[in-house]
């Protein structure tokens, strides 16, 4: 005890090292599973950071708006024009919709399984981001109380965002698609028999490979989730940006432009 009192700094350092090493060891063995204590901390940080994030976003949006008045005006003009065009298209589509309803009724009458799936969603706000320049994990303000479970897919209006890594009451940790920890099985929209796997890559992109070396994948191909693994089928992942043949692995490797703009994420929805 006397030695500890005389060498306070070294003692604290060694104790902290031992305690943290034990925590690290236990965490690795248990596969990073959280407990009640980590849940409380996550909820607390999520609550405080959520308010700060909203304030920061509001400031950024307002400041950006002041400095980009001219481009915003142009954007409004363009959107008004687009709105007119869409109204015209909507009138045409409503006629097609009547045809579709008739077809659906017919398929039900014939007991034919309708393939389009409807997902139950839980909308959530992003409350905090890791900001580490390294991993791509963020926290949302919905958790087990909304029926969210570990492994649920997270989407937004543009496409697949990631998956739930951990969840508790009032919070969930999401690993985004651009994280190297996130592997997704996909298929091409053009030919749904052509499968592959993508994961996050350096610089916030997505890259992967095709299962079949003879695949006809090409630049611009749209890829969606295949339904194999934890992600439901048909979620938009992105567009193929580049295709190369790796003579070492004998596989076609691809880089993908994600459908989602991960830098501007504010709201997401969890498929439950």
């Amino acid at each position, binding site marked *: 005890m006397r030695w500890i009192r005389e060498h306070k700094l070294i003692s604290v*350092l060694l104790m902290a090292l031992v305690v943290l090493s034990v925590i690290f060891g236990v*965490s690795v063995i248990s596969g990073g599973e959280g407990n009640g204590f980590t849940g409380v901390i996550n909820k607390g940080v999520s609550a405080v950071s959520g308010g700060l994030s909203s304030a920061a976003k509001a400031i950024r949006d307002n400041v950006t708006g002041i400095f980009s008045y001219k481009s915003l005006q142009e954007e409004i003009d363009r959107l008004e024009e687009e709105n007119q065009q869409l109204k015209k298209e909507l009138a045409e589509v409503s006629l097609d919709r009547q045809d579709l309803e008739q077809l659906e009724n017919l398929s039900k009458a014939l007991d034919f399984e309708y393939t389009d799936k409807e997902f139950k969603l839980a909308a959530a706000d992003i409350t905090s981001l890791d900001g*580490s320049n*390294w991993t791509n994990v963020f926290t949302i303000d919905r958790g087990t109380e909304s029926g969210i479970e570990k492994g649920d897919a997270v989407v937004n209006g543009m496409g697949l965002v990631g998956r739930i890594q951990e969840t508790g009451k009032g919070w969930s940790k999401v690993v985004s698609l651009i994280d*190297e920890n996130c592997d997704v099985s996909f298929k091409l929209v053009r030919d749904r028999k052509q499968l592959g796997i993508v994961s996050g890559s*350096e610089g916030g992109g997505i890259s992967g490979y095709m299962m079949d070396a003879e695949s006809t994948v090409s630049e611009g191909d749209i890829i969606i989730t295949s339904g194999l693994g934890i992600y439901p089928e048909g979620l938009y992942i992105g567009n193929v940006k580049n295709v190369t043949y790796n003579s070492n692995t004998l596989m076609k490797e691809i880089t993908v432009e994600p459908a989602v703009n991960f830098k501007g994420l504010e709201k997401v929805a969890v498929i439950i």
Partner: protein
Amino acid sequence: MKYWKAAVAFTVAFLLQTSLLNVISIAGYTPNLLLCLVIVFSFLYENGLYGIVFGAAFGLIYDICFSSVLGPTPLALLVCAAVILVVREYANIENIVNLWVVSVVSLVIFYFISWGLFRLGGNPESFVYVLKRLPWTGLYSLIVITGIYLVLIRKITKHRKDRYYR
């Protein structure tokens, strides 16, 4: 410096890191504020407990919130604090060049150790990925470290430019 002041500084840094900094990041890069504080506090204050205690505590909270395994961030911060505490015994803390050298070494140590531990924990990030991000993150952090240092050094050594004062 009193402990509560250091605690407030680390709390603010943590909250900024997880909210505001992501909004004002430059080309997707942000400084690591926790690491910046650990480096400056360990370098400037003889009582190196600030960096060790708060670095470990907030590093652990950070891992709880954002990492797949617990421990790599506080352990890497702890090693950085320990290295700086040894180096500061032989360095003139009033010379900013010494701070820059110590900071660069600490940044490299931090990112390599945390990468290694995360790798042990099952994260697949490649070493090349860390190397690619390190220069920009390091540069950004170095600017923040310099700013914090210039504020705190005035309080630690008053009239430091006055040679008669010494």
